[in-house]
């Protein structure tokens, strides 16, 4: 059953405050967080978080498409190793 709409999205309160401070500083800091359960809100867009996966803080650059998802979705807890092949990475 999905979460009731009247409750609004869940997000740990301290994260909101810290994101506001980081946004005001307009630096490219990585905000290291443990809260994988928090929902990504529109005010987080453009910030970079380091989301703990139990071992490392995985860099998560928040974009508009990610709003509504949870932080933990972008920080896998299982190791996957593949071959690079012809895959490319675009510098953001």
């Amino acid at each position, binding site marked *: 059953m999905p979460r009731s709409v009247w409750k609004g999205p869940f997000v*740990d*309160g*301290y*994260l909101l*405050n*810290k994101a506001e401070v*980081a946004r005001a500083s307009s*630096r*490219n*800091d*990585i*905000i*290291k*967080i*443990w*809260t994988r359960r928090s929902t990504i809100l529109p005010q987080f867009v453009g910030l*970079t978080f*380091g989301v703990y996966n139990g071992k*490392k*803080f*995985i*860099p*998560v*650059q*928040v*974009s508009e498409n*990610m709003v509504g998802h949870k932080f933990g*979705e*972008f*920080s*896998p807890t299982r190791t996957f*190793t*593949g*071959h*690079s*092949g*012809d*895959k*490319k*990475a*675009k*510098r*953001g």
Partner: protein
Amino acid sequence: MERAGEEQRILVGEIGRPHGVRGLVKLRSFTAEPGAIAGYGPLTDATGTRRIALTLLAPDLARIEGVADRDAAQALTGTQLYVARAALPPPEEDEYYLSDLIGLAAVTAAGASLGEVRAVEDHGAGPFLVLAGPPERLVPFTRAAVPVVDLPARRLVVAPPEEILVRPEAEA
């Protein structure tokens, strides 16, 4: 990726088990689009001596030129398929092949070593570099964090971002 002298070769797939009795084989493609493996022309094996021409019949099924029966197909099981780096199309601006980035030396603007790039990962929230260190560092692959990528010199300049810790206790 293998480097033999000037020629760089990139692992793009692997031949799997035989399929049927007419020499068809299962194929594991490591390319971004699985079907792209057949678009790079003839491939070579790990030694670089054997030329292997594929025709894709399905995303994971291929016919190999000169292989017409199951025994011949069985003999190729596990063969790794390489393509010359020069056969890959040039990437767009600010786009890099992972195989080009892996192994680059990472240094700070001041010249201090941060180890080499061990992997480039992307879990849906932007690519990031895994720098071997020690200590191991995960650096977002952005212009701010990686201002210079110098492929001919095999190095990149990294400006490690500041880190802000947000512990749950901060809520109190």
